């Protein structure tokens, strides 16, 4: 290794030592945001590159994870805006409380030792949950991803998204309801509800 290469390695080291432990959650969040693995890999790489370029603006001692996720989310939002062919599948109308519970009971889903909702969710795999997330509009998906994958508080989400806490609270409230409806729609679309309510399923 040349002296120049060594110097560059030393330059990257502080960034990499903070970024490497975040890779798993960054990729997890990216996959929920963009749905496919190749797109998630691209998004994480793009965010890592932008974060490295902007690393001189990071204040040591502050929260690197929140700083990096802000960059990741911004990359996603700007990519989404560039690529409007992606549809917002779900209308933003009111969705009743306990949506998933009501649908599963109405459909006659039941399990031996579990509630109807638990029975349905137990049958949905990670891919199908991802498909349901992908049906949320981008801004709602971003808030829901930070909430579900990262356990960020409302205040931290507000910091990452650059919006007031009240906006996070109302988006998250609607995102949870939209996600319940999307989970139900995925279960219907993929024949899971029919299988669970077929005579031999009981």
């Amino acid at each position: 290794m040349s002296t120049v290469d060594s110097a560059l390695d030393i330059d990257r080291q502080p960034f990499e030592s903070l970024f490497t432990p975040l890779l798993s959650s960054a990729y997890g969040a990216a996959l929920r945001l963009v749905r496919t693995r190749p797109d998630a890999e691209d998004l994480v790489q793009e965010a890592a590159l932008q974060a490295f370029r902007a690393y001189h603006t990071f204040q040591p001692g502050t929260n690197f994870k929140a700083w990096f996720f802000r960059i990741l989310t911004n990359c996603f939002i700007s990519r989404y805006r560039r690529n409007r062919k992606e549809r917002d599948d779900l209308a933003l109308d009111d969705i009743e409380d306990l949506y998933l519970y009501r649908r599963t009971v109405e459909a006659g889903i039941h399990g031996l030792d579990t509630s109807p909702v638990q029975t349905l969710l137990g049958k949905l795999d990670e891919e199908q949950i991802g498909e349901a997330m992908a049906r949320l509009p981008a801004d709602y998906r971003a808030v829901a991803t930070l909430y579900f994958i990262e356990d960020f508080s409302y205040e931290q989400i507000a910091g990452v998204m650059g919006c007031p806490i009240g906006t996070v609270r109302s988006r998250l409230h609607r995102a949870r309801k939209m996600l319940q409806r999307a989970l139900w729609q995925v279960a219907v679309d993929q024949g899971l509800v029919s299988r669970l309510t077929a005579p031999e399923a009981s």
Partner: protein
Amino acid sequence: MKSEKIDPLTCEEAVARLDDYIDRELSEEEMRRVRHHLETCAGCAGHFRLEEDVLQQVRDKMRRIAVPGDLMARIQKRLEGE
């Protein structure tokens, strides 16, 4: 032991606080008011349990993600090019 007086909530008021209660985003006083309501209202207690259960199951499944083994190496390669 001194008992604290709690300003009771109606079912509608309790349900309006459901998300914030589950996420522990309410003040101590508000958390106490919701808890008190749930101790005395089986309907709302069941409603809250169902919501928490859905959130937990979704959260658990969303987190089961394997990172591609070579992703960090690819990122390092791109950083080297900077």
